């Protein structure tokens, strides 16, 4: 873990308290019901935590990337489903940071600052890892665009106030024909479809979005026509470490639960001995390494340095670590693990390897960076990062 | 108490067959054997009849040496005995040869009240074997049977035709070929499987059947068997006028060799 400033330590502490009070006691119930935790938006309104990425000038907290990572780790520790709501809302508003103009930012951040959430609508049945394969269209008509199509697996879709929707403005241009749009809740023709029942993060709201002749003003276009994919990719670079933070939280939780369980089982000391001790040590190594990698990525971002590759590395690593550690935790705790919230941790961990770019996509990003020709000068400086 | 004989074919399980992309030929290396589907129904039908009213069920098959793998399977499904003829001639045999061989065997085995076959085999589905067999044995034949009963020496069979059904009443002995909808073949219970090893099987040597060499010469010859895979061209015709699109479609089809 990076050395934190006093302010960061304080934020981490208050977040931990918030999570202990609001999230941990309710996690199992909402997971079992598979219901969205609207109460949490109310509980978080005063702290404005959902606006932690919104710049101060718009009323947000403007937390640094590292601080956001601390918050998200605590939320992930408490419940990955509830943490996903927060992470995905930030994902849904990151495009405004990347490409929004002044007027758009004012409009878009307002409901978020007031306690609402956002959603990011990229995925479609035909556009999973092949994000450019989407079929939703946006046709210019006077000073409006008309959107038609559908999105699936959209987190927060049923409860968001504002959405970013990727749509094809020019189907003949492939990737360069996609544009990003703001769509506000309540636009006629914009409806929420079926809710997906999932293996994990069950309290997180995952839905279809249906767009039938949805009219939006031309001023809802983010950036220029054709920049949609570029905006999406830059957004994902920012958003991926948020998922990594949730994953670290899950992993840490699993480790802590193992320690608690073993200490109760074997009150005098760890028995039968080395096998279990070393298993805990291996878990600790993984969690610490994952967290450190993540914090490095966040610090790069905060410093203004490029961090795409590191973003992919931390997302892939932290997701894989969460999966491995939660699996180990169920094994260690046996039938108790299988019949308790420990099982939830394992179910929740799986999605960390999948959403916001599968860990296979992350590896594509990373290998491309690894195989790219080394820059002539400045390579040594980069190495000294 | 009917004495039944079921003729069955041991074929390759088509779901195990792969198509070689290079020349569309079939890769059967990993294909397991199975009792031809409608033959399985025939065995089941005979077993049900005899379980209900007594009698006996025997089974008879003609194939390559692979048929030895079929014996326990068949015996676990009701028959009390299975006769088998294994000969290389089976590899190229058509319905004509098959019927010749089966008829010769049946003449040796004695009389049966009811001879059952599947309507057609899973692999070739010629639907000729039962009819040819009946002709050779000078027996009546009822085909496309979806419901069957036997009382004394009278067989009552419901035939599924293209337009409706027909009920035929025939005085036995009779050859009957059955469709898949006649029954649901049992899943042999474990005891039935284990009991199969204790039931007898008897090889009939083809050389003991007194067949002339011509009788083993197939009248139709398979030159090759190829698989086909649907390949989508994914071409969309999206001109503004329907007439233009149709014209483009028809010229594409003509270019593919369709006229």
């Amino acid at each position, binding site marked *: 873990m990076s050395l934190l400033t006093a302010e960061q330590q304080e934020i981490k502490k208050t977040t931990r308290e918030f999570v202990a009070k609001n999230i941990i006691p309710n996690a199992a119930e909402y997971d079992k019901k598979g219901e969205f935790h609207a109460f949490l938006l109310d509980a978080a309104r005063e702290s404005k935590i959902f606006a932690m990425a919104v710049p101060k000038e718009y009323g947000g907290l403007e937390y640094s990337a590292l601080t956001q990572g601390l918050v998200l780790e605590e939320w992930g520790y408490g419940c990955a489903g509830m943490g996903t709501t927060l992470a995905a809302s930030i994902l849904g508003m990151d495009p405004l940071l990347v490409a929004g103009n002044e007027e758009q930012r004012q409009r878009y951040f307002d409901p978020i600052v007031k306690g609402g959430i956002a959603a990011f609508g990229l995925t479609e049945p035909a556009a999973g890892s*092949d994000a450019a394969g989407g079929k939703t269209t946006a046709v210019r008509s006077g000073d409006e665009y008309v959107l038609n199509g559908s999105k699936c697996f959209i987190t927060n879709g049923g409860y968001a106030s504002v959405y970013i929707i990727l749509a094809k403005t020019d189907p003949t241009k492939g990737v360069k024909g996609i544009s990003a749009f703001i769509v506000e809740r309540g636009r006629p023709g914009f409806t929420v479809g079926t809710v997906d029942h999932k293996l994990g993060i069950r309290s997180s709201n995952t839905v279809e979005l249906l767009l039938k002749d949805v009219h939006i003003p031309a001023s809802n276009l983010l950036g220029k026509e054709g920049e949609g994919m570029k905006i999406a990719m830059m957004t994902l670079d920012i958003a991926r470490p948020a998922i990594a933070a949730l994953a670290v939280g899950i992993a840490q939780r699993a480790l802590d639960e193992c320690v608690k369980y073993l200490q109760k089982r074997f009150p005098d000391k760890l028995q039968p001995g080395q096998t279990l001790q070393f298993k805990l040590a291996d878990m600790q190594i993984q969690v610490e390494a994952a967290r450190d990698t993540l914090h490095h990525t966040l610090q790069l971002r905060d410093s203004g340095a490029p961090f795409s590759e590191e973003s992919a590395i931390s997302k892939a690593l932290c997701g894989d670590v969460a999966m491995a550690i939660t699996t180990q935790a169920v094994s260690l705790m046996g039938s108790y693990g299988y019949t308790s919230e420990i099982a939830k941790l394992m179910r929740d961990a799986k999605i960390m390897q999948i959403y916001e770019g599968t860990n296979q996509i992350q590896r594509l990003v990373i290998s491309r960076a690894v195989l790219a020709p080394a820059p002539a000068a400045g390579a040594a400086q980069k190495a000294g990062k | 108490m009917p004495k039944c004989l079921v003729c069955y074919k041991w074929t390759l399980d088509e779901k195990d067959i792969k198509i070689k992309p290079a020349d569309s030929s079939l890769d059967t290396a990993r294909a397991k054997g199975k009792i031809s589907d409608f033959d399985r129904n025939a065995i089941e039908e005979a077993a049900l009849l005899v379980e209900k009213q007594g009698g006996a069920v025997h089974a008879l098959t003609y194939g390559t040496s692979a048929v030895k793998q079929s014996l326990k399977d068949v015996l676990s499904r009701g028959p009390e005995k299975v006769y088998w003829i294994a000969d290389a001639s089976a590899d190229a045999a058509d319905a004509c040869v098959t019927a010749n061989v089966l008829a010769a065997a049946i003449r040796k085995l004695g009389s049966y009240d009811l001879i059952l076959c599947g309507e057609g085999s899973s692999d070739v589905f010629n639907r000729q074997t039962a009819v040819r067999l009946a002709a050779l044995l000078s027996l009546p034949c009822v085909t496309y049977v979806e419901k069957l009963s036997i009382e004394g020496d009278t067989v009552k069979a419901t035939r599924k035709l293209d337009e409706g059904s027909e009920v035929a009443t025939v005085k036995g002995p009779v050859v009957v070929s059955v469709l898949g909808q006649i029954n649901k073949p049992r899943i042999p219970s474990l005891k039935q499987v284990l009991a199969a090893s204790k039931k007898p099987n008897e090889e009939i040597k083809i050389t003991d059947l007194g067949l002339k060499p011509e009788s083993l010469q197939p009248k139709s010859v398979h030159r090759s068997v190829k698989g086909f895979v649907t390949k989508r061209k994914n071409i969309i015709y999206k001109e503004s006028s329907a007439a233009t699109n149709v014209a483009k479609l028809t010229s594409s089809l003509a270019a593919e060799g369709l006229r």
Partner: protein
Amino acid sequence: MNFQLTEEQQLIEQSARDFAKEFLDPIAVQLDYTGEFPKAVIAELANHDFLGLHLPAEAGGAGAGFVSYVAVIESLSRSSAAVTSIINNQAMASYAIQTWGSDAQKKQYVRAFIKGETIGAFAVCENGPTTGIGPDALNATKTEDGYVLKGTKAYVRNAGEAGVYVVFAVTDAADPNALTAFVVDASAAGLKVGPRLNTMGLKGCPVAHVVFDDVKVPETAVLGSLKAGREIATRVLALASVAEAAQTVGIGQAAVEHAAAYAKQRVQFGKPIATLQAIQTLLAEAATDCYLARLALRAAAQLVEDGKPFEAEAAIVKSFLARLGSKILVDSCQVEGGMGFSESMPLPRLFRDIAGTTLLDSPADFPDYAIAASIA
């Protein structure tokens, strides 16, 4: 050395496959959703001789060997591991009674097990990482006409549905490692089944704690002989390891096949994702692990059938799958991406089920000790 199933074993396996398709596939999803004990399926299993598969013919069983047993469990598990959990746990009880039971015990229960009229449960203390005695362990105090049982058995599978429990208790406080096995009828006064626990998967196989509140049992309730319990438990658990491994392989195989079929039709980047090396790697590793596990568990099963020592081999299979079993599902779900996380598809259920067959009863160090002990 023959790695293939015999013709007979293949026919048995085929019957199990056909049974799974006809009776398990149609109910598997609903069973996972409701967790309601599948009585109708139990009756059909009995009709097809699956409940007495491993028991000798003279006892009314099918008398098929252990290799056939694991082949059946694998085949049925491809459709519903919840059902095979019920079967396996019953088999532990029926095997124990058939092997060590008195004539009276066998007469009372074995045929009833085979016919599906009575469900059996095998309750070994499961309080932690080792199958050791914990503070809640069952105690059996000798009385004039028998024993009084007091304590709790944890995480008992088939609890609540079972008509009889094979339980293990400490009869001599001075010798707490010596266990005695008892056959206790579910109707015994003072036997209380706790509330059903919410399992991650294998829903349909009930799991609960069973409290013995001064349960009186006669002398004749002892299974085998006094203090023979540890020997019985060890042997039965070793057999159960192999049977559970068969469940894991069945679930894994089903997952690999589903993921492969999905990958062949899921088009992204203009081609089916099955053409991508990344996907091929995931599928290949999963298929490899299934194949190796199957070979290993069949080899162990053959040793059982031949009456040879098999405990180390059983531990090896268990250890292998403890490390790699869940990876098969983690990777199969990964192939299907978002769809592999949606409960509208089968993989999440298989993921939850395999966690129960591959990770549990696998105390962190227990199987490795057995293996190490056989080598060093």
